[in-house]
C-alpha cells in the first residue's frame, strides 16, 4: 500500500483509540477531562524508554505503560472524583501539564525537552487496525451493558443514579481508568509510529483536538465518534489546498456543524451489525437503531 495512505490510516487509528476512551469518559459519563494526552504521554514514554533502554519487547512495554497509567489514574481519580466535576476537569488539566513538566524535568530518563529519538518502526497498519477493532468492541460492550446505562444515568442525574443503587464514585473511577488504558495504548502506538517523541507533542492543544472529535460525533453515539475521528483526521489532509487558510476552514466547518447539530453529528443514532447485514442482504429495513434517530 501507498505509505502516505498507510501513515494517515495509522494516525487515524491511533487517534481513534484515544478518542474511544474519551468517548466513554466525556461522552457517556459526562466527565470533562483534559488529561487524555497525559496518559498518551505515559504510554508513549514508558513503552519507548523500556524498549530503548531496557530492551523490553514492544508488547511488554505497552502493557507496562498501561500499568503505570492505571496507577497514576488511580491516584488522580481517587483524589478528585469525589469532588465537584469541575475540580476533576482542573485536576486532569493539571495532570497533563505536570506529566509534561515531569518529562522535561527528569531528563536523565526521558531525554527532557530533547525527547526520545530513534524509536524503531514496529507499529504496522494491521496492528493498529486490530487494536482499534478490539477497542471498538470493548466500547460497544461497555455501552450496551449495565456499564453504559450506569454512565448515562450518572451524566444525566448523579443523585438519582446513586438512589438507584449505583456506586457513582466507583463507576466514575472505573471509567476514568478504562479510558486511561485507551490513551496509554494509543500513546505507545504513537511513539512507535512517529519514531520520535518529545514532551511538547502531548500538550493541551492535542487534548482539545480529541475533545472536539468526541463532541463533533455526538456524546451518545459510538458510530458518530468513530465517524468524527476519521473525518476530522482526514479533513486537514483534504484541506491542504487552502495553504495558510487550511486550519481556518477546518475549524469553521467544526463550528458550523456544531451549531447545526448541537447534539453531535449523529445524535443518538448507532449503526448496528444487523443493519449492516440487512444492507448486505439488500433488505429495505428502515435504518433506525433502537431508540430511533435522536433529535
Amino acid at each position, binding site marked *: 500500500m501507498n505509505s502516505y495512505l498507510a501513515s494517515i490510516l495509522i494516525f487515524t487509528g491511533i487517534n481513534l483509540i484515544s478518542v474511544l476512551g474519551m468517548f466513554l469518559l466525556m461522552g457517556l459519563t459526562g466527565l470533562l477531562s483534559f488529561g487524555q494526552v497525559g496518559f498518551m504521554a505515559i504510554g508513549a514514554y514508558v513503552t519507548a524508554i523500556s524498549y530503548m533502554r531496557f530492551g523490553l519487547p514492544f508488547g511488554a512495554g505497552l502493557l507496562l505503560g498501561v500499568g503505570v497509567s492505571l496507577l497514576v489514574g488511580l491516584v488522580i481519580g481517587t483524589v478528585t472524583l469525589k469532588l465537584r466535576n469541575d475540580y476533576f476537569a482542573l485536576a486532569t488539566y493539571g495532570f497533563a501539564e505536570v506529566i509534561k513538566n515531569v518529562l522535561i524535568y527528569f531528563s536523565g530518563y526521558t531525554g527532557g525537552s530533547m525527547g526520545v529519538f530513534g524509536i524503531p518502526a514496529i507499529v504496522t497498519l494491521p496492528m493498529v487496525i486490530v487494536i482499534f477493532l478490539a477497542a471498538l*468492541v*470493548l*466500547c460497544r*460492550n*461497555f455501552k450496551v*451493558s*449495565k*456499564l453504559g*446505562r*450506569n454512565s*448515562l*444515568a450518572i*451524566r*444525566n*442525574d448523579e*443523585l*438519582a*443514579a*446513586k*438512589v*438507584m*443503587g*449505583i*456506586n*457513582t464514585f466507583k463507576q466514575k473511577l*472505573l471509567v476514568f481508568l*478504562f479510558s486511561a488504558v485507551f490513551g496509554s495504548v494509543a500513546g505507545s502506538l504513537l511513539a512507535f509510529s512517529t519514531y520520535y517523541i518529545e514532551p511538547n507533542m502531548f500538550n493541551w492543544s492535542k487534548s482539545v483536538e480529541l475533545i472536539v472529535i468526541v463532541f463533533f460525533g455526538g456524546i*451518545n453515539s459510538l458510530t458518530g465518534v468513530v465517524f468524527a475521528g476519521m473525518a476530522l483526521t482526514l479533513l486537514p489532509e483534504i484541506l491542504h489546498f487552502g495553504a495558510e487558510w487550511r486550519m481556518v476552514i477546518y475549524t469553521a466547518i467544526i463550528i458550523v456543524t456544531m451549531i447545526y447539530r448541537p447534539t453531535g453529528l449523529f445524535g443518538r443514532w448507532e449503526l448496528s451489525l444487523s443493519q449492516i447485514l440487512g444492507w448486505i442482504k439488500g433488505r429495505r429495513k428502515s435504518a433506525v437503531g*433502537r*431508540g*430511533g434517530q*435522536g433529535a
Partner: protein
Amino acid sequence: MKEQPKTLLQMNNVTMRFGGVVAVNGVNINLSEGRLAGIIGPNGAGKTTVFNLISGVYDPVEGDIRFRDQVISGKSPSEITHLGIARTFQNIRLFKGLNVFDNVKMATNCRTEYSFMEGVLGLPRVWRQEKESAAEVERYLELVGLLGYENTWPENLAYGLQRKLELARALATKPALLLLDEPAAGLNPTEIRELMDIIRRIHKELDMTILLIEHHMDMVMDICEELWVMNFGKVIANGDPEHIQREPEVLRAYLGS
C-alpha cells in the same frame, strides 16, 4: 393484619438542620413490615427531608435510622438501595439519555452480578443476566402500564406516564421498602385512580412495604393503613386514617389555626 408485625424501618429521634433551619426535629417513626403507610402534612413540614434522610441523600445531625435493625444513617444512597430501599422523586428525575426501557433496566443494574471487566469483554454471563433483566423490565412496565413505550424517550412521555415510569424504575431495584414522594402530584382524577390500583397491586402482589408522601387526602385515606402527620419538622400524630381524621392537632395544622 398479621400478628406482631416485625419492624422494618425505625427512625429514632432524627433531627436534620440546614444552616440555622431545623427541617426535621426529633422524628420517631416505626414502620412495620408489610404496611402501606403514608406521611402527610402541610408544605414545608419536612416530609421530603425525611425521605432524603432515609434514602441517604442527607445524613441526620442527630438520631439514627435503622432498616431491619441495621443502622443505615451515614450510609451512601447506593448502599441503602442495595439494602432494599427504593424511592421516587417529587420532581420527576428520569434519565433523559436513556429510553423508557433502559431507564427501568438501569435500576436492575444494582442486582446484576457481572463485573466491569466481564461487562466490557461481553462474556456469556453478561448476556444471560442482561436477558434476565430485560424480562424483569417487561414485567415492571406491564405492571405500571407502560408496555409499548419501551423505545420512547422519557421527556416525550405524558406527565402521568413519567410518574409511572419513575415508579417502575424504583420497583426494578426490587426493594423491600418503597418510598413514593407525591406519586399523584399533577395527575388527573382518572390517573389517580389508576395509580391507586397500581400501588395496591404492588403492595399485594410484590409483597412490598410502601411509605408514601401525598397531598391528595382522598387517596391517602383510601389506601393507607397507617399515617404519620408532620408539621414544622415534627411528627404531630400517628395512627390509622380514621384515627388521624379525628385528631384535633391535625385539623389545626391543616386549617392553620
